[in-house]
C-alpha cells in the first residue's frame, strides 16, 4: 500500500484528538481536578483566618491589605491547578514517551504531533483554571474573575510545560513527580501571603509562578490589567517546551542517513 499525501491539518487534528483521549483516560487526574481542587480552596477559606494580611503587589507597585483567607484562596487555587496540570502532562508524556518515539519514527511529523499535545495541554489548563475560578467565586467575589482565570491558566501552562519537559527527559516516574511537587512547594511557599506576607525579596520574581501569582492577586483586589505579568508564565512554558522538543528530536532521530553508504 503506497503512502498518500496527508494534510498538515489531518496530522495535527488527529494528534490533538488522541492527546485529549489520553488525558480523558487519566482517572487520577480527573479525580484530583474534581475533588482535590475544591477541597484545597474550601479548606483554605474555612481554616485560614480572615484577618487582614499585607501583600507586596509589584504588578501595581503597592502593598495591599486583604483578608487572609481570600488571599490564601488565590495561592491555593494556583497551587492546585499548577500541580494538577503539571502531573497530567508529566504522566501522559512519561507513559507515552516510547510510543510517541515509535510514531515519529513511523513517519508522524513531529511538529504536528507536539502541537496536538500542546493543544490538549492548553485545553486542560483552561478547563482546570475555569473550574478553580468558579470554586473561588463561591466564597467571595474577586474584582476581575476573568483575569483570575487567565492568571491561573498562565501558571498551569508553566507547570504543564515542566511536566512535558520532565516527562521527556527523565527516566524515573517517581523522580518526575517529586521534582514537580518540590518545585511547586518552593514556588508557592515563598510567595504565599500567609507564610511570607510581604515577600519583598527580589528573588521572588524569578519563581516560575511569580507572574501568575501577581496577576491573580491583582485580579482579586484591584482593577488594573497586569499584561507583562501574564506573559511570564507563557515564557517559562516556552522554555520548558523547547527543552522537551530538543529531547524528543534527539530520541526520534533516524540515525540511518548518518552512516548509509
Amino acid at each position: 500500500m503506497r503512502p498518500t499525501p496527508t494534510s498538515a491539518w489531518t496530522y495535527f487534528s488527529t494528534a490533538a484528538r488522541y492527546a485529549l483521549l489520553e488525558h480523558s483516560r487519566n482517572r487520577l487526574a480527573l479525580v484530583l481536578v474534581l475533588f482535590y481542587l475544591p477541597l484545597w480552596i474550601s479548606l483554605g477559606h474555612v481554616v485560614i483566618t480572615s484577618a487582614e494580611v499585607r501583600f507586596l503587589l509589584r504588578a501595581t507597585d503597592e502593598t495591599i491589605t486583604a483578608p487572609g483567607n481570600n488571599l490564601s484562596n488565590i495561592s491555593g487555587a494556583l497551587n492546585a491547578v499548577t500541580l494538577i496540570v503539571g502531573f497530567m502532562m508529566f504522566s501522559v508524556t512519561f507513559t507515552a514517551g516510547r510510543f510517541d518515539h515509535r510514531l515519529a519514527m513511523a513517519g508522524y511529523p513531529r511538529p504536528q504531533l507536539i502541537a496536538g499535545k500542546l493543544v490538549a495541554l492548553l485545553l486542560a489548563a483552561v478547563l482546570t483554571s475555569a473550574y478553580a475560578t468558579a470554586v473561588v467565586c463561591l466564597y467571595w467575589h474577586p474584582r476581575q474573575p476573568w483575569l483570575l482565570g487567565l492568571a491561573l491558566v498562565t501558571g498551569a501552562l508553566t507547570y504543564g510545560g515542566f511536566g512535558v519537559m520532565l516527562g521527556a527527559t527523565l527516566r524515573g516516574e517517581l523522580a518526575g513527580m517529586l521534582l514537580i511537587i518540590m518545585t511547586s512547594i518552593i514556588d508557592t511557599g515563598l510567595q504565599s501571603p500567609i507564610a511570607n506576607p510581604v515577600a519583598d525579596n527580589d528573588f521572588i520574581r524569578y519563581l516560575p509562578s511569580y507572574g501568575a501569582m501577581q496577576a491573580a492577586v491583582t485580579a482579586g483586589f484591584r482593577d488594573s490589567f497586569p499584561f507583562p505579568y501574564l506573559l511570564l508564565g507563557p515564557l517559562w512554558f516556552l522554555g520548558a517546551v523547547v527543552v522537551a522538543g530538543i529531547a524528543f528530536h534527539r530520541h526520534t532521530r533516524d540515525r540511518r542517513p548518518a552512516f548509509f553508504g
Partner: protein
Amino acid sequence: MSDARLVLEVHDVHKAYGRHRVLRGVDMELRAGRLAGVVGENGSGKSTLLRILAGRLRPDRGVVKGPGRIGYCPQETVLNPAFTVEQHLELFRVAYGLPGLDRAHELLETLHFADYRRHRIGALSGGTQQKLNLVLALMHDPPLLLLDEPYQGFDWEAYQRFWELAGQLREAGRSCLVVTHIAYDTSRFDDLWRLDAGRLVDDARRDG
C-alpha cells in the same frame, strides 16, 4: 543464492557500550523475498544489531544500505495503554500516510485477533499485545521487515500463524529479518546467521 535484488547490505558494523564491544565487524546481505534469521544467546548483541539496522542506534563504524521504508518490530511491546487496538491502527495509518486500514485488518484476521479491535491495551494478554506490536510494524507493507523476537509470548497457534504470515510476505517479495534466541525451527529460514563474539557466522545447517 537467488538473483533477487539486494534489499539490505551491512558491512563492517561495529558497536561498543563503553569498553564492552558488542558488534565487532558485522557483514550481511539480504535479498528480496528472503526470510532470514539471526540467532544468538541472550546478550550477544542481536537487538543492538537490529536497532542499528532500523536507524534507532548509530554504529561506531560501518555501512548499512537499505530501503527508505522499513517495518521495525521492537522486542518489547511499544503501545499506548490509553488506546484501543483500532485506535492504534488509526494513529499509525495517519503516521504511515495510508489511505485505509484494509491491510491492517487483514493482518488482524491472519493473526486471529480481529475480535479485540475495540479492546484497550490493558485488557489484552501479553501475546495479543505482541500481535498488535507486530501488526504496527507490518501494516504499511514495507519491503524490509526487521523483527526482534516477534513471537515472544505467542501460544502455539499464534506461533504457527506467524510463520504462515512470514510465508505470505516472502511470496509477496518482502524480506524479513527475524532476530531470536530460540534456535529451534531454524529450518524455516532461507538464510540463517549466528551472532557469535560480535560477528555473524553463516549457519552451516543451511548448506547441509
